């Protein structure tokens, strides 16, 4: 019998409640600066449990206040993978403006327009979530410093079913 592949309903479309990948780490993050998660999950480390074992997620940036990205500005995000369950991670102590030497796991593009509190900016497309324990590495490539406080990067796990 034919069966339709469908998006799993979950709650508001998510199979687990969207959770914060980054919060205060983003406060006043300077232009071109990089930062590693240290607050969400367990001291900034996320596991499959955090991701509800989902394979895909929707990532969003929730603005905490006003800043005006330069034309073409974006935030790049990498999952820093840990091969040993959360003790050691991919190298992340790079200088300002230096990207990880592999493609990012997601980018969040911005328009050249001032943001306001609670503005939502979605990552460009569906994001494949990591199997391994991970931290999040963010590069501020918006061309300006983020404003003082209140910014959040969230991940909402999604799934399909049949």
């Amino acid at each position, binding site marked *: 019998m034919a069966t339709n592949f469908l998006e799993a309903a979950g709650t508001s479309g998510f199979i687990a409640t969207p959770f914060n990948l980054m919060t205060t780490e983003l406060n006043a993050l300077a232009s071109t600066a990089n930062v590693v998660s240290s607050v969400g999950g367990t001291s900034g480390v996320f596991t499959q449990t955090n991701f509800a074992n989902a394979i895909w997620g929707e990532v969003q940036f929730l603005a905490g206040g006003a800043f005006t990205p330069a*034309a073409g500005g974006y935030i790049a995000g990498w999952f820093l993978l840990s091969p040993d369950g959360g003790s050691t991670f991919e190298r992340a102590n790079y200088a300002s403006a230096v990207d990880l030497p592999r493609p990012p796991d997601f980018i969040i593009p911005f328009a050249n327009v001032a943001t306001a509190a609670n503005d939502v900016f979605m990552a460009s*497309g569906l994001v494949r979530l990591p199997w391994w324990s991970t931290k999040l590495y963010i590069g501020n490539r918006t061309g300006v410093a983020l404003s003082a406080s209140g910014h959040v990067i969230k991940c909402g796990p999604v799934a399909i079913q049949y």
Partner: protein
Amino acid sequence: MQLPVQLRQPGKVKPYGSIPRINWRHPLAKNLAVYGYDVGGTVIDLINGGMGFTTTATAVGRGASRFGSGYKYTNGGGAVRLPFTPRINSVAPPFSIACSFFVTSAPASGVFFCLADTSAFGQPIYCAADSATAMRQGFNNGGADITYTASSILNDYHTMIGVGVSTSSTIAYFDGVSQGTGTTDPTVSFPTAAPTFNSFDLDGLSGNTTSGFLYYGALWTRALTASEALQLHLDPYCFLIYPEDEIFSTIVGSVVTAPQTFTFGPRWSDGEFSTEIVSY
């Protein structure tokens, strides 16, 4: 057993806004050395991992087109380059360079994609145009350009490919069709060249007359064939795997439980539509 099945409709429209990876099993990916792909927010070199950045303080804005969103270049505006990679510090045949674009006004002696050096006109190979109907496929720092006339390139999707076949043979393809050949040796040593969009100069602005979108720029260390050039125009993203593609491969893999009693050929294509079914 997993049975990946790529179900997306082939075509010139970027299928998704997400970040893809290269399907190295695909024949078109063989010897791919640089692939700068506009993911809708920035250009990423999916081979070498680098991310594009503006060559000067002149920024590039974004926009949406009917073939996908991404950087929207403007005549006289900014250019984007990818980080240097030693894979391309000496361009010797066989090699192939390709890019696709959608422009809304005529370029004037401008460049879409090239390997650029630090001087305004030091570019070993490039895809360029002198006007809306005069195309220029450049080899060997301009010493062996193939020029040809095209119908107006405005407001539609186009593909330019230059192939260095040997030290005595080059070919230019436009929209998958051969436009001419050359005999000058395209070999050039350029240790500092970097893949660059909308400028002949990797740290300045020169020939930045593109008004529209540059969807990708690529370099192979082999000569693409005529059939590959056509396929690249008709289905430019056929060798990319998007996260969305893998939804179906996972589901199908979980459904198939009976032993296989049939055999698929590795690939078939009628030019407009192709399907790849691989079992392992």
